[in-house]
């Protein structure tokens, strides 16, 4: 079933900061091809609305870019990163594609569901968390991966993820990125070839 646009019940106006950003975006495209900027503009709208696109925002974007609201709706439903229902303050996206799945993404989903007490696709009543399973996040090298808002949490064990969620719940700071490695995708201590010997494979 397609997701219908939902009212936010308050008028949508782009913030001053966003309006400046939009001006810069529109300058990149020919004047009669304003609609080319639809993806970044929708993204700005979604961020301003707290992670989802209410009907007012979509209609404002349509008017801004000179297209029908239907066109904006088509775009917003095609790309899975646009949300047409309110999401939580922390939007948890568990990668379930092959690499992560093989490295235990299924367990991560269960941990989330148990810890946050919501099922996939739901938002917690207090609006703090929402949970979703997504397709490949493109970080297979550090699988399994969970994206929370704009940050990736990689190399997660169920326990590590529980710690991350716990920290977010209590508004403590957490370190994004790999939960086991020193830096990026370097091998954990004791594993694999040593970079200096092979002459800088990937450091």
């Amino acid at each position, binding site marked *: *079933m397609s*997701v219908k646009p939902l009212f936010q019940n308050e008028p949508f106006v782009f913030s001053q900061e966003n309006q400046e950003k939009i001006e810069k975006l529109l300058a990149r495209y020919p004047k009669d091809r304003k609609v080319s900027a639809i993806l970044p503009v929708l993204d700005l709208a979604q961020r301003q609305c707290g992670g989802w696109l209410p009907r007012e925002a979509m209609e404002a974007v349509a008017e801004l870019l000179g297209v*029908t*609201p*239907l066109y904006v*709706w088509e775009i917003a*439903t095609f790309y899975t990163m646009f949300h047409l229902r309110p999401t939580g303050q922390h939007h948890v996206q568990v990668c379930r594609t092959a690499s992560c799945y093989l490295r235990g993404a299924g367990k991560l989903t269960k941990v989330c569901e148990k810890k946050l007490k919501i099922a996939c696709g739901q938002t917690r009543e207090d609006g703090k968390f929402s949970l979703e399973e997504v397709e490949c996040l493109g970080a297979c090298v550090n699988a399994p991966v969970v994206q929370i808002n704009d940050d990736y949490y990689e190399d997660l064990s169920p326990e590590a993820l529980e710690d991350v969620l716990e920290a977010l719940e209590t508004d403590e700071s957490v370190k994004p990125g790999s939960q086991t490695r020193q830096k990026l995708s370097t091998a954990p201590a004791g594993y694999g070839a040593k970079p200096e010997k092979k002459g800088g494979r990937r450091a």
Partner: protein
Amino acid sequence: MPKLTVDGKEVIFEEGMTVLQAVEQAGQEVPVFCYHNRLEIAGNCRMCLVEVEGSRKPVASCAMAAGEGMVVHTKTPMVKKAREGVMEFLLINHPLDCPICDQGGECDLQDIAMSYGRGISRYDEPKRAVEQKHMGPLIKTHMTRCIHCTRCVRFLEDVAGVPEMGLVGRGENAEIVTYLDQAVTSEVSGNVLDLCPVGALTSRPYAFRGRPWELTKTPSIDVMDAVGSHIRLDSKGNEVFRILPRVNDDINEEWLSDKARFCMDGLRTQRLDRPYIKVKGKLQPTNWQGALGKAQELLSKTDPDKIGVLAGELVDTETFYTFRHMLDMMGVNHRDCRDPGQHLDHRFRAGYVFNTSIAGIEQADACLIIGGNPRFEAPLVNTRLRKRFLKGDFPIAYLGPEFTPGRDLTYPVQHLGERAKVLEDLLNEKGTFAKTLKKAKKPMLILSASSLKGQDAMKVLALVRQVAETYDLVREGWNGFNVLHNQASRVGGLDMAFVPKGKGYDTQGILTAAEKGKLDVLYLLGFDHPSLKDLPDSVKVIYQGHHGEAGASAADVILPGAAFSEKNATYVNTEGRIQQALAAIAPPGEAREDWRIVKELAGRLSLDLPFETIDELREGMALENPYYQYREVLHQNTWGQFGRKGLLAQDHILGFDEDYYKTNVIARSSLTLAQCAVAGGWEPEDAQQEVTHA
């Protein structure tokens, strides 16, 4: 010319053709769902797969450009298997509800599944079901059947110019929708029903009423506007069940306006099916003898100068011819076939027809639209203009009132103003559009006949003629001067010189004279006008027509006639193309073909009209107007000094104020079109009640 090989046969193709077109040229059939030769290519159904040597995978032929020396196979096991695979995927989510589906019997999916499918399904899992959508009074949806070919979306976006439908979601969740279940309001929306290859979008008025193989198909001509679209009347028993377009590239391509497609319930309601005469102020049913006797009495006892004759918007050319003959013999000069207040010069044919021709629009390279709104006066002329606009390099200017929201022309226009005075500036070569017109190789202008109203109309006509002459619109091999009519009877009436003779009154004059009691008898030939209510009792009214409306309720004698679907009649479209409609059904009750009624009345008045049969009548017409010998073709029309020169009043506005769904008596009687008028915002919600009285 490049060549390619299809199944071992070499074919020549034109540069820019797709593989599919080349294969079809070779005489091979390719099954398609999303491809349509008049729409943009989408390439999303994958049914048209063929094998091209050198490519390891099957190729979607509709989206692949044909290349020199390609070797294409359409019958290899690989192609067969690929198509079976596509078919199987399409059928996974398609319900097996053909017995209750309105598309059954004319369904592309059914036909192609029979010819190219596996025959059995291996699919056990639950099928997807899709929520029903509301799309207005014309389109009935059953979206579970949708195969996402997006023909409807592409049609509305490209041809109709109003992107009211779209595809939301992706993959298995993709659905065809209108924005939040709004009604589709386009005036050509009915075409998506023809385009839909499955039963997802079907006709709501025709729902569950018939199967294609039960219907008798009669070729005919549409009379809802002056385009003269070629249509097919599908009838069963004595009823027209539906109206579909016939392909004609010169006129309607393969589209049809909604008014033409959905007027058939108007053919059933409010019909005059027997003669009536007024006895003691009340209409009483009678027989033909009585009604014709009464009409004869009224006409023979009245001074011809006290008789006025008005013809309406659906009168066929034969009736015009017969009637005019009779009136000439009687010496009746007050007669007219034009709208009240409308002025058109019938002396020169080029001065009242669409000379460029509808197909000719595609060759034009600049266009000036004067008055009116082609989108609602002639929707299919407007789609042609849009088609030409989409090819690019087609500056269009518009002279007339600002469009109300949602009533624009579906392509951008340069707005020159709303007063006819602007024409004078144009004549003096002022303004930017003057330069554009000057430079254009094939410029055209479209003058809306509905805006030629009021005192200054003839002057406007003369002015527009002068503009055409100044900018060299009329020359050897090109005539860019066009009058766009919005009523089917108009050109025929003018051809037959059904206009005031000598000092006779025109339509407005006759109406005013009748209201003041200066006329004794008013003969209305399918003419309805609200002002007929206020006629004084001294004016006796004879109404000949097929629908009981303003004219019939004011009548003292009613002579029931036949509607366009019930008679063999000739209609002339705005291009001056003479076209013949065939009777699909018989007139209801005692109603008769109109020219026969006139002929019989003439006989009773001891006037000997020189023809007995319709063939003799048509011979007479052709003798009087030589171009009536040739049907379906365009004629070279005489150019002359039409219009009347003079100074324009400062404030003459080129207006357009008609309700698209209410322009003729059949459309006004149709409940479906009344619903469209409400859905399209032409009328307030509560107006719908009025039509149901019958």
